[in-house]
Structures are given as structure tokens and as C-alpha cells.
């Protein structure tokens, strides 16, 4: 190595160093923000007992700090952000979906088993018939927010009792009472006000004053107390619930407590359990789910393709028309054409829905017809495509206008000089150039419409429905159909929904794979 080279190398190093000072500051600030965010999140996570999340957060931050402090790990510095995003937005949802698919998570199975048990027990508390209602004051001798407290209870006959966890005791000393009889002052005790009582809600929930056989005094809000009894008790050893009212025993089965007497009675509140492949079996075995899937799949593809084709055709035609340089008021026309795009789509869709009304709709009124647009499978499909055309063409118009303006006029002129007709010039010069720019957008538009839930939901809600099937309508696309199965008739069924989305994912992955393979072949031809 020559001296000159060494010098220049050194020069570059010092120049780099000069540049790096602001960069270093930015780096420090960003790392500080990251650490700050984590510091903010940690107490919340601890609050929610989210230990896995806590570990993941701290680990992710530690890795980030380690990567970006110091000069090592150059490749990692580039890879880390993308990898983290990949984990958070791709990998995590996929894993979460799969883990949900093997459970019965959904309405009736949202809780954990211990939560379900305590909910059932709490719901079984009933007032002891004929028992008294007390006026309640909560009192403490120490800090109102944390010290142990007692109840001062005024019975309907005016007698005052002190209630503690060991029972009721009559208060004989000197007690100050309000006109209604509520205790408002006892020497040596501090009576809590409404806000202070409320702050002790969690302690109050656990505070039972034993009273009589199996009964206990429990607060009703902040000013009243009643004598209650728990009818249902859980036995940990046998994992059963016993209801003292019906004398029935319930054992746990499939995320529910079911009566052992074979009557099929069960408590409504269930919990989340692992159901293995039951959801997958449901999707593939249940003829009601699997049956219409093929028909719906074809309509979904047709709907997305036709929407893209019609909107693009109309958008392009209008763009070409308005591209003519001699046309007057081009700007005005263009602005007017963009109007449908400016309106919120869901409002337009609702307006379209009312225009299609058979008896009172604008369209039948104008046509003097009695077409049952949304009540007939084919007219409903046509109606959806028409409404979608109206909503979608301005976008295509906008894009085509932009692309047309970017194609040099010389190319067309050259084609015309070479003797091509206007149509030939368009077909062989303008269109291919246009398609190169527009193709990715058309594909994106197809993908969007493939899952265009709003259009279907707001226009037809999947309908019309065959008279023997209320789950699969004639205009349903995959997403609206899935949604109805998962959240329609039986409330939310997240487990089943996850399973169906996995099935659809597989379906689309296969199609995409085939599509990509074909594209590659095309690319090879172009080369």
C-alpha cells in the first residue's frame, strides 16, 4: 500500500467521524426513546401479569441497545428493525391465529377456568329470604386507603352493630347517627366518605361478615348491606361445583360445568380450553360450511376481476377522452369525475342500496320498472358491480390520467409519422407503456376487492339468501361469508374464525404461488 493511499484513507476516516457526531446524537435520542417506552410499558405489563410480554419487551430492548451501541454487528444494525417488524406484524399474528384455532375461544369461553368459577360462585349469591337490610358505614382507625376497616350497620329497628370478619357485635357505646339512622360518628373511628369507600372496592369484595347459618353480611354499594348466601361452591379436590339450591353436582366438560345427573344442564359461563383439531374438523366436515365454499370462491374471484376490469376500462376511456389537448374545461371535467372518490364510500354504498329499492328506489322510479334488484341473485350481483364501478372508476381515471401525461407525446407522434392509425398507435405504443405502470396497481386493486367486505356488507349483506340456507348468500364473498360463520349466528367464535382464516390463507397461498410461477415464466419470455 502506498503512502498516498494511507493518507487518503485516514482523511476519509476523520471526515466520517465529523459526519457521525449528529448521527450519534440521533442514535442516542432514539435509543433513549426506546428505553423510555419500555420503562413506561413495564409497570403496565406487571399490572396485567403479562410475564411473557414483559420478558419479550425487555429482551427486545436489550438486544436493540446491544446492537446499536458500539461498532460491532454492522449487518445486524440493518437487519434488526425489519426482523422485529416481521416478528411483530407477520410471525406473531400467524402464530396467534394458529394457537387460537385449536381452542374454543369465543363467546361463552372468554375467561380462564378460575375466573369462570369465581364468576359462577359470585352470581349464585342470593339474599337470605326475610333477612334485614342494614344501613352501612365503613370505618377505620388508620389510613383510609389501606388500614383494616369494619362495618357499622344500622338495623331497621335502629340498633347498631359492628361487623368484622369474625361476626356481628352490638355496639352499646355512644354513636352519632344521621336522621335516617346511618352511623356518621363513632368515637375512635374514622367514617369513610363515598370516595374513600369506593377506593376500597377490591377489599370490600373480599370482606364478608359471617351472620347466621351460611349467611354473611355484604355491602350493596356504599350505603347499604344485606345478608347473602352463596349457593354454589367449588370443590378443588374433585373439580366439581355443587349447587345447594338444586342439590346438583356439576363437573367440568369441554369448557363448561355440566350437571352430573345427565340432564345436560350447565352453567352459562364457560372458559377457554384446548379443543385440538375440532375446529378444523368442523370446517372440513360440516357440509354447511364446506358446501358453498367453492361457489363463493368463484364469485369472489369473478367479483374482484370484474370490478377491476370495469373500473379500469371506464377510468381509462375517460382518461383518454379528457387527455385530448384541445378539449376545453378539462380541469373542470376532471374534478367532476373525481367526485365519487371524494365521498365516503360507505355513505355512497348506503345511498346505492336505497336506490336499488324495488318499490321506493330511484332506479326503478326512473326506469318505470319493478325490478327486484337486491332480491334476485343475478340482479344483485349486477347491482354490486354497478355500484362498485361508480365508486371505483375515479381512482382508475386518476391513475390513467397521470400515466398518460407521463408518456411522451413524441412516441405517439413518431408512430403516426410511421403511418400508424390512432388506434394502432394507442394499441401498440400507449397501451403497453401504460400497462407497465398500471399493472401493479391493478393487482393491488384486485387484492383489495378480493376482501372488499364493506361493499358486500353495506349493499346486500351477502343476500339474497336461498330459502334453505341463511349462512351463504348469493353475493357473499369469502370474507363476508367467513365473517358470518364466525360472528353471525352464535356470537363470536374466535377459534372457528381463526381456523377458517387459515383455510383461506392456504387457498390463497396456493393460488398466489401458481400465479407467481406464471409471472416468472412471462418475465423470462420478456427477457
Amino acid at each position, binding site marked *: 500500500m502506498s503512502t498516498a493511499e494511507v493518507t487518503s484513507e485516514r482523511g476519509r476516516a476523520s471526515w466520517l467521524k465529523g459526519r457521525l457526531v449528529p448521527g450519534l446524537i440521533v442514535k442516542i435520542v432514539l435509543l433513549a426513546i426506546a428505553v423510555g417506552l419500555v420503562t413506561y410499558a413495564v409497570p403496565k405489563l406487571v399490572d396485567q401479569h403479562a410475564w411473557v410480554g414483559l420478558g419479550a419487551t425487555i429482551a427486545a430492548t436489550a438486544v436493540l441497545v446491544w446492537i446499536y451501541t458500539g461498532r460491532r454487528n454492522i449487518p445486524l444494525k440493518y437487519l434488526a428493525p425489519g426482523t422485529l417488524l416481521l416478528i411483530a406484524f407477520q410471525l406473531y399474528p400467524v402464530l396467534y391465529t394458529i394457537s387460537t384455532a385449536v381452542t374454543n375461544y369465543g363467546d361463552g369461553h372468554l375467561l380462564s377456568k378460575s375466573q369462570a368459577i369465581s364468576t359462577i360462585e359470585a352470581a349464585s349469591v342470593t339474599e337470605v329470604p326475610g333477612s334485614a337490610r342494614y344501613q352501612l358505614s365503613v370505618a377505620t382507625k388508620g389510613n383510609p386507603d389501606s388500614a383494616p376497616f369494619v362495618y357499622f350497620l344500622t338495623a331497621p329497628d335502629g340498633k347498631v352493630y359492628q361487623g368484622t370478619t369474625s361476626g356481628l357485635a352490638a355496639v352499646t357505646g355512644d354513636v352519632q347517627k344521621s336522621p335516617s339512622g346511618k352511623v356518621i360518628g363513632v368515637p375512635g373511628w374514622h367514617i369513610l366518605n363515598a370516595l374513600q369507600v369506593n377506593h376500597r372496592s377490591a377489599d370490600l369484595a373480599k370482606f364478608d361478615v359471617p351472620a347466621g347459618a351460611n349467611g354473611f353480611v355484604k355491602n350493596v354499594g356504599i350505603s347499604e348491606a*344485606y345478608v347473602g348466601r352463596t349457593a354454589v361452591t367449588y370443590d378443588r379436590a374433585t373439580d366439581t361445583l355443587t349447587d345447594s339450591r338444586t342439590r346438583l353436582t356439576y363437573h367440568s366438560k369441554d369448557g363448561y360445568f355440566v350437571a352430573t345427573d345427565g340432564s345436560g344442564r350447565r352453567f352459562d359461563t364457560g372458559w377457554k380450553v384446548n379443543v385440538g383439531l375440532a375446529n378444523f374438523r368442523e370446517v372440513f366436515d360440516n357440509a354447511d360450511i364446506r358446501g358453498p365454499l367453492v361457489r363463493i370462491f368463484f364469485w369472489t374471484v369473478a367479483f374482484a376481476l370484474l370490478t377491476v376490469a370495469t373500473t379500469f376500462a371506464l377510468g381509462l376511456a375517460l382518461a383518454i377522452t379528457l387527455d385530448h389537448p384541445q378539449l376545453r374545461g378539462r380541469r373542470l371535467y376532471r374534478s367532476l369525475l373525481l367526485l365519487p372518490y371524494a365521498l365516503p364510500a360507505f355513505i355512497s*354504498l348506503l345511498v346505492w342500496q336505497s336506490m336499488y*329499492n324495488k318499490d321506493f328506489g330511484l332506479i326503478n322510479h326512473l326506469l318505470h320498472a319493478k325490478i327486484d334488484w337486491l332480491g334476485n341473485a343475478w340482479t344483485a350481483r349486477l347491482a354490486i358491480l354497478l355500484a362498485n364501478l361508480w365508486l371505483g372508476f375515479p381512482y382508475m381515471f386518476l391513475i390513467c390520467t397521470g400515466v398518460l401525461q407521463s408518456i411522451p407525446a413524441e412516441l405517439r407522434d413518431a408512430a403516426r409519422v410511421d403511418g400508424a392509425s390512432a388506434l394502432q398507435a394507442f394499441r401498440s405504443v400507449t397501451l403497453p407503456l401504460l400497462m407497465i405502470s398500471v399493472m401493479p396497481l391493478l393487482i393491488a386493486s384486485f387484492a383489495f376487492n378480493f376482501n372488499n367486505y*364493506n361493499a358486500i356488507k353495506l349493499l346486500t349483506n351477502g343476500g339474497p339468501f336461498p330459502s334453505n340456507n341463511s349462512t351463504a348468500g348469493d353475493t357473499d364473498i369469502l370474507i363476508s361469508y367467513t365473517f358470518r360463520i364466525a360472528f353471525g349466528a*352464535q356470537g363470536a367464535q374466535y377459534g372457528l374464525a381463526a381456523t377458517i382464516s387459515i383455510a383461506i390463507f392456504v387457498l390463497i397461498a396456493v393460488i398466489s404461488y401458481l400465479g407467481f410461477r406464471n409471472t416468472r415464466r412471462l418475465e423470462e419470455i420478456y427477457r
Partner: protein
Amino acid sequence: MRPSVPFDPPRRFGRGGRLSAVTAVAVVAVLAGACSSSKPAKHASSPGSTPPASSSSAPASGSSSASGIPARGSADLVIWADGQRAPVLQKLAETFGQENGVKVDVQTISTDQQSAYVTATTAGKGPDIVVGATDWIGNLVQNGTIAPVPLSAEQLKAFQPIAAKAVTYNGSVYGVPYATENLALFRNTAVAPTAPTTFEQLVSQGQAAIRAKKAQAALAVQTGQTGDVYHMEPFYTSGGGYLFGAKSNGDYNPSDIGVGKPGSIAAAKLLAKYGEKGSNVFRRSIDADNSISLFTSGKTPFLVSGPWALDTVKKAHVKYALSPVPGFAGQQPARGFVSVQAFFVSAKAKNAALAQEFASNYATQPSVEKALFELEPRPPALTAVYDEVAKTDTDVQGFYAAGKNAQVLPQIPAMASIWDALGKAEAAIVGGANPTTTITAAGKQIKKSIGS
């Protein structure tokens, strides 16, 4: 105007992902990651993140996780209500707050109240009290999101029996009722001066109005393309149908399903007779969006609707009168639903003591229910208050008379299977499908979905 009816199955839609703790962590981790590095450009250009919006740039549906839920803020008691009731309740809540020296915040949840409540409560972000209809109870209980309200026997007795029944579920009281809602027949007294006592009379009056060019439709019962079980219920029951049999304790029995039984087939035949292929009284073209306006604009002399329609009808200055929804001549009485609006206390209320105090010792006071009625006139649930306001308010009387035969809107979770399947079957029958096979198929489908 959309009535604030709670039984609309679509309301159950839109339960976006629950914002689990783990997701939150992932987000934080990513934020940390994104902040400490140069911005990765790949997300900006991927088709997924920027909807090409070929046909709609409608609200990004994927990001609806917890965004619809208001923050709890610093209030000592948080109440959720729909847009119509929230402002009314805010005034009462302020009185409660002043009496107890606490700050009460009434927050508006405009759509999907029930699912928003379940989602938020499960995630520990819910309110202390939620205002809703009593048919939510089954679902809220099975998800462990509401706690029983320990009302005393006397407190419960002060309510109208049907209101007390509507908040009682599996032997426990789960809410404090404050208003009842049921269907009645609105009639335009300029066109139809006398109240029809049978459906046949109603039809002949309505059709006479059409012939006299005074109307375009004999009757407005919202049906729509997917049907409306709630509004069809009087006719379905009059024709002989029922939804669920009763258990010995009066609760609905989900294993005795009436859809598909002979009575429901007889009812379905009557729906077909008066449907689009018959005398065209029931029509799918009349739906939730246009039924009330058809009445107020004079296009129909009769409307079947509830107290939620009163405001619009009054503003339109139509001379109207209320009467019971008539049943078919010589058939069963028409028995619509009574739904009851109630205060529910969250099972995970952060301010459980205040929430319970508000529900059981404040909302049960006659003066409070009276004030609620004055702010928003729906028939009060407390008998004493009802009697008081019924003396002067003819609408309250009308709805009461119309609701005499009514049945409690079932609270059992199995009801969710009915709304969808029976609604669509009824719509198909109205549209001309074979009544016998259609209702039988619906019965089978309901049985299957409840059976699991």
C-alpha cells in the same frame, strides 16, 4: 333513523381483535425497534398498508381493535350509553356525583355497544356501568362481564312485573330496569280514523287508502332483504308460531324450539298470503331505513314501530294514534316483544362500590326514573312512575296497551341463532319462497346451531 333496538344481529359484528397484553408488548417492542433505527421503507409501499381503494377508501377495518373505546380518564364512575341516552344520563349522573362528592363520566358508544363492552371488559378497559337492553344479559353472563345487582325484594316489586322478569336471569337479578319498549301500531288518523282490531281490517283500510291514491303501501313493517324477527314477531305469534318454550321457572327453554313446528308453518303461510306474491302488504322493500319515513311522508297509513319512532313522527306533524298491533282474525293474539332498558354493573368494575350504589340505590329511585322519562319519553319501568306519567301522556298509555300481551325478549344466548336464521326465512317467505319448506329448513338450522 335507526331505532336503538338491541336485537339487531349485525350489531354483534365487528368484534375486532382483542388488544391482548401480548399484542401491546409486541407493539411496544416494535415501536422501540422502529425508533432506534432508520425507518424501514418496506411498509410504506406494500399494497396491504395502503389500500388502493379501487372501490372504496372506507374505514380501515383491520385497525379497529381497541380504537372505538374511550379512555377512562380520571372519573370515579364511568358509564357507557348509546348516543341517544348518554346526554340524558350525563345530567342525572351529575346529580349523583354532587350528592356523593364524586366525578361521574357518561361516555358515548355509538355502535356495537354490546360487543364493544364485552371486548373492553374482558381486556380490563371497560366501564363500571353499561346501559343496554335486557336481551344482552345471556351473552354478558356467559362471558362473565356483568355482576348481579342485589336488589331487595321490595325494590324489585316496585317495578312492572315484566321489567322485573326481564332483568332476572337464572334466578339472579342482573340489572336495574328503567324503561320498557314494545311495538305498537301507529296509524295516520287523517286516513284511518278507527283503529283496526284485526289484521284483515288493517289490510282493507290500507288497501282502500291505496285505491284512493292516499298511500303507496297498506302498512309499513320493516322487513328488508334479510328480515326482521323483532318487527315480525306479532304476526308470527298471531299465526301460531313461537320461538322458545318456557321452563317451569318461566325462563325460556333453549331446547324447545318453536321454529319449524306446525304453528310456525301456519304463521309462515299467512306471511306468504300477505307477502309480495300475495296481497303485497309485507314487503322486503320496506326496511329499517325507510319504514318510519314512509309513514311520516304519508305514503302509508299504518306503521308498526316502537317508542324510538315517536320523536320523528312528532316532528313530522302527522296526526297519529297508537293502538295494539292487531292479530289475524280468529287466530292467536299478536304478541310482540318487550325489551327493557337497564343499568348493568360490570363484573370487573374498578369502582364497584360506587357502581353498585348508583344502580341499586340511585337508579331505583322514582324521582330519578321520572327525570329520565322527562328527558327521554319512554315508558318508565317503575310502576309508580309509570302510573304518574300515564295520566297525562297518551303515547305512554298507547304503548302500554299495545304491550299488554307482549312477551319478554329472550335473554338466553341461543337467541342469537334465531335472529339470523328466522329473519332470513321470513324475508324469503315474504318474497315468495315456499313457506313450509323454508320455515322447516330454518328450524333445522337453528336446532343445529344451538345444539352444539
